[in-house]
Structures are given as C-alpha cells and as structure tokens.
C-alpha cells in the first residue's frame, strides 16, 4: 500500500507543470479572445502534447495515449491547480464521443469527434421522456423516413444543456411494429433548426439546469444514425472506457464537509458556538466517518483502474453514497442556519458545487441535494442496481416483464 504516486509520476508531474507554465494562461493577442476560444486554442496544444483527449485516436483529433489513470489524475490535479481548461465536461465527451468511436461510421467520427473533444461542438442527450423515467423501453418520440431525411416528432425531458447544445443524440422510435427496445434508433439531430423548442425547467431552488425539448417535424439526414435501425437501445449502452475520475467525486464531498465545518465554527446555537454543542459535534463527526470512507473508496477505485481490475461492489455505490453524504451535510447545515433557514435559496444553475459561503447558498444546497438524489437515476434505482448487480438478487418483477 502506497499513497504516493512514485518517481515516474513525479517526473511526469514536472513535465505537466512546465507545459502549463509555458502555455497557460494564453499571452498577447490570444488572451484577448473569448474564454471559450481561449479554451479551444489551449486544448489544441494540450492534445498535441498528449495531455487531453487521451483515449481518442489521433485520426479523430485526440492524442491517443496509452490508458494510464494515474497520469490522468496527475493531469487533472495540475490543470486544476493552474485553472487551465481540461477535457470539456459533459455528455459530449463522456458519452457521445466514446459511442461514436466504438459504433460510428468513419465519416461520422471525422465529422463530430474532433470538435467534440476540443469543445467546439456541444451535445445534449435525448433519452428521457415525460412518460418514461427509468423505463426507456416505453419511449414515444418517433422518427419516420421521408426520402433521405428522418422526420422526428416527440418530447424529451431532463435534457441538460439543451439551450446551448449544437446537436442532440436522440433515442427515437423508428420501427413502430417492433416491440419495445427493438424499435428504437440512435439518431443525431441538429439543434439549431425550426421545429425544436427548448423550454428550461425551472427548479424549486429557482435555477434551471434541465430542459424540456419539444420536437415538431424536426429533420435530420437519413445517415445521421449510429448503428443500424432498431439498434439504438444497444448503442446507447456502449460501455464507456474513459479514464474515470473516481476520486474527483470524493474530493467534492470532502470540500462540502470542510465547508460545513467552517459553518459550524462560525454559527451560534442558542447563544453558544455551535461546535460546543455535543449533539452538533457528534453529527459532524458521524458525517466525517462517511466522508473519510468515501474518500478512501476513491483511492480504492483508482487503484482498481490502475491494476485493470473491475471495481465490483464499490464501483456501484459511488453515486448513492455521495448523495447520502451530501444530504446529511446539507441537513446539518440547515440546522445551523437558525432563522436564515427561512430564506429564499440562491438559485444557481449548478446542481452541486463546492461548499456554499452564505446562508442562501446552504438553503440552496438543502434543496439541491434532493435534485442530485433524483438526477440520473433516483436512489431507488441505485438501490436496485446495488441489490441486483452487486448482491446478485433477482430483478424486479415489472422491470423484468417489460424487457
């Protein structure tokens, strides 16, 4: 057991540092560009140097590096420290690019992957619909071939980033006669066309992270399909083989806890410092146990990756564990706010970030911790996954029937 990165990676870290010292922030005229443009300029160089788009082939605009989760971690750490742009976050690099690389035609990869890994092209995901949450088999958005174009009608929901996205990858029912999963295709759609109506979904905290997307006779070329007709369900399940940031999540949870500690040190309860209250201190320390466990689980998962092993049970627990911890953090913070717990939340767009600084921010987190619990699979779905895939328990009857 060794938590240091070892001399090889110390050397690598120095290389990354000198690259950054030379290339970020941009200088001279380049520094006058918009931030997005600066990011693209910088990423181009970082890809050339082998630091970004590491799993993407050079042919499609990546740097095609051997998989090395520890190098990836060093890069994240140093880029983070220098506040330099890393790989573009979000659904484009996380889901669309890997899917295209594994399943797409050559021309599709050439057309979309380079711009995606650079951050020039933004994507949104068209999976969920109002009538189908965890039950994708029931989706209703339909596409019909009209000459050499698909004509798409339907409604998507929970679509993050739809307002700014250039394209959507969209599960669409194209084979109405086929049953359930078998009738779905994976279509790519230009978001900047008439017939697409994006309506932000306002959250209870006032922010708007998600959208509804209404599609009315939306058109896309017949060959903007990934995989064959009716294979969309399979395509959407393409395994993601990127270098997962397993300890980033743990670091965020730790940052939240530190923020809670700061709050507890400042807050008063019944006229005394809150930290002197034994009930508060015990609750804090209990949360600390979970936070430390979560942090160490991050190390474990990184080690599994380094060794090329499956993460197993612990890999299935990340989301629910951090959700639970963040809920406990936000509840305790709420109790420390005193009368400020009646205030309107500071409705940021973000679902969850570092620890808030003011009362309204903590009220926001009190609500946002519920949103996070729901986004991308409710706690109950997470428990199904742990129970079924982790503990080998039988599948739910109704889900089974619906297959």
């Amino acid at each position: 057991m060794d938590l240091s990165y070892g001399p090889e990676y110390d050397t690598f870290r120095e290389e990354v540092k000198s690259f950054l010292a030379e290339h970020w922030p941009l200088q001279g005229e380049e520094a006058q560009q918009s931030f997005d443009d600066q990011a693209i300029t910088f990423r181009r160089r970082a890809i050339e140097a082998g630091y970004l788009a590491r799993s993407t082939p050079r042919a499609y605009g990546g740097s095609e590096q051997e998989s090395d989760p520890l190098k990836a971690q060093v890069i994240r750490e140093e880029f983070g420290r220098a506040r330099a742009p890393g790989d573009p976050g979000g659904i484009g690099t996380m889901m669309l690019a890997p899917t295209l690389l594994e399943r797409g035609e050559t021309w599709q990869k050439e057309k979309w992957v380079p711009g995606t890994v650079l951050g020039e092209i933004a994507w949104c995901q068209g999976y969920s619909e109002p009538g189908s949450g965890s039950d994708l088999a029931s989706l209703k958005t339909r596409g019909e071939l009209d000459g050499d174009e698909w004509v798409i009608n339907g409604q998507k929901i929970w679509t993050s980033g739809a307002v700014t996205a250039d394209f959507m990858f969209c599960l669409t029912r194209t084979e109405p006669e086929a049953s359930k999963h078998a009738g779905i295709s994976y279509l790519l759609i230009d978001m900047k066309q008439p017939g697409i109506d994006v309506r932000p979904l306002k959250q209870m905290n006032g922010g708007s992270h998600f959208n509804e997307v209404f599609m009315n006779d939306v058109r896309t070329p017949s060959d903007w399909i990934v995989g064959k007709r009716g294979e969309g369900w399979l395509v959407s399940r393409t395994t993601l083989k990127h270098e997962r940031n397993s300890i980033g999540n743990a670091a965020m949870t730790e940052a939240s806890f530190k923020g809670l500690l700061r709050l507890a040190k400042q807050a008063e309860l019944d006229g005394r410092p809150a930290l002197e209250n034994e009930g508060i201190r015990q609750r804090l320390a209990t949360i600390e146990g979970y936070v430390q466990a979560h942090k160490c689980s991050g190390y474990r998962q990184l080690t599994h990756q380094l060794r090329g092993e499956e993460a197993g049970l612990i890999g299935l627990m990340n989301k629910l564990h951090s959700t639970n911890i963040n809920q406990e953090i936000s509840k305790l913070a709420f109790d420390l706010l005193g009368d400020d717990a009646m205030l309107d939340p500071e409705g940021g767009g973000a679902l969850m970030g570092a620890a808030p600084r003011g009362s309204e921010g903590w009220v926001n987190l009190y609500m946002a911790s519920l949103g996070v619990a729901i986004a991308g699979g409710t706690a109950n779905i997470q428990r199904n996954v742990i129970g079924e895939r982790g503990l080998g328990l039988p599948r739910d009857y109704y889900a089974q029937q619906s297959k």
Partner: protein
Amino acid sequence: MDFGLSEEQALLQDTVGQFLANENDPNQLRARFDSEERHDAPFWNGMIELGLGGLMVPEEFGGAGLELLDAALVAETLGRGAAPGPFLGHTLAALAIASGGSDAQKKAWLPKLATGDALGTVALGEDGGRWLPDQWELKANGSVSGLKHYVPNASVADLIVVGSAGGGLALVERASAGVETEAYAGADRTRHLDSVRFDGAACEALPGEGAASRLCDAGLVLLAADAFGGASRCVEMSVDYAHNREQFGVTIGHFQALKHQLANMALEVEPARGLLWYAAHVFDKAPEESERMAAVAKAHLTDRFMAVARDAVEAHGGIGYTWECDVQIWFKRAMFDRSFLGSPSMHRDRAARHW
C-alpha cells in the same frame, strides 16, 4: 371521555376546506405563489367573511368566541391548502389583545380585527433567534426603538403587537411615525415576512400578565397545526402520484420500495394528529401543561413536516424537484413553520426543562 372533534368542529374544517377548494384551487394557489404581490386583499377578505378574522375574539367584541383548538383546526386546513395570507399573525395579535389588553384596548381593536377593518400582526423575533418573551431585549416604554425580524405581513398590517424586554407586549400602529418595514426574500411565498425597524414609535403596553407566553404558546400550536395539515397534504400528493404515474407498464405504487416509503411517510404524520389536538386542548383547558405540550408539538410536527416534504420531493422523482410541481409550495411552507418562533431543537430543550 371524548378525544375527537365535535360536529361543529368538523363543520368548521369542512367550511374552510370548501372555501379553499373554491378560492385557492391549484391554479389560483400557483398564481398567488408566483406573484410578486405580497398581499392578496380579496382572498383575505374572503377569509374574513368566513369569520376567520376573529376566531378567538370574544363574541362581545364581534368575534366567534372559539378556542385555540378551533383555531388550530382552521390552521390545519389552511396548511393543507397552503393558503396564502396573514392568518397567523392576525390571529395571534387578536389573541394577545383578548388575553392581555385593557378594556379600552379590547374595545378599540378587537371589533376591527374581527371584521377585518384592521389587519394585525406580531413582531417577536430578534437578532440571534431570540423569539421568546424571556429572550426579548427590545425596550417599549411609551415609545419603542429597535429592530424586529420576520414579522408576518408587516408591510400591510395596521396594528403590530410587539414583544418587549421583560416579556411584555405593546401595541404599535404601523402608520405611526418611526415605523419602517423592509421585505425579506423568504422561501415561503404564501406568507411574506418583513423586518420592522422602530425609531421612537409611539406604543401602548398591554397591561395583562402572562399574555406574551400565551401568545407564544398559541403561536407554537398554530404552527404545529399548519405543519400537520401541510404534512398530510404531502403524503396525499405522493400517494396520488404513485396511483397515477406509470413505469414498466404499471403504476409506481406497485413497487414495494416506494409503497413502503409512502407507508413510512404516513406513519410519520398520522399519529401526530392527536398530539396537535392535545396541545391545543390543554392550552384551552389545562394551561399548566400548555407550555410543555406546545413546545413538544411545535418541535415534533414542524420537523415531521419538513422531513415528509423532502420525502415527497423524492417520491415525485425528477418532476418533484421542479418549480412547476406543487410539492415545492409545501416544502417552503415547511421551512417557515420549522423556523418561525424558534427551531425544533430550541423547543425540545424547553420541553426537557419539564422532565
């Protein structure tokens, strides 16, 4: 032995419930919640016409002469319907005068409050969560200066009952010189709060002994009642959703995990109904138990409401987290009920003094 509601009480709840069904249906409630207006006078007048302005005002002064239990049943119904408006502060102001005012003060104010000609409120909270009579530091001696926090609907009130150092109460007319209100951006958009800064404003003490603690106990019970109504509604909304929303070809109420979560929510709420009744009952009939039971009821019920409102968001899935889903209205009402007049932990400590 009869620990249940009388026919009159059931009728009272029905009447108020029917009024809300007509005048505060989901669309009307939504419009009020989203509105930038902080007071809906026609709606409040409707409540006044029902007699809700003077529930506990003695009949000789034009009120209904009812007890706290009755007022709590109304508060429960208002909480269930998330009724916007100044009922809480107004009712407490009237109670303060009825129980602590001089004859002249009663004559001057109670009829107006009962008929809605005057709107009353109470200014209790001070810096650092000092909500209760023995914590107040604001001095009121002919005139009053200083700051009160979280005063319900102060900007539209005519009369403010102000808590003062030594556990006293004093009347201040909002239109007097030296009274300024400033709006809070509170989460609960059904009951707006203001801070009130007094700068040498004229005030008149209520002479009656013990009125301040009666006022606070009654406030705790009314908050608990609102919380019970709201919490019950959160359970109902979640159960309704489970009956209607489908996944995998069946309504989600078929899924045992959710069914058990809903059962647990109901189990958090339904047994607390009797606790609420009891706290109101002893306020009316056995005042020696009132301080303790009001504290227990406020702590227990407002905590349950908050917890069940969180559960209701989860039970609604993604939609539960949106602004358009009504659950948030009760969620934010729970935030008000829980903090107003002091946190559950503060009241648990008060209850513990009786052990």
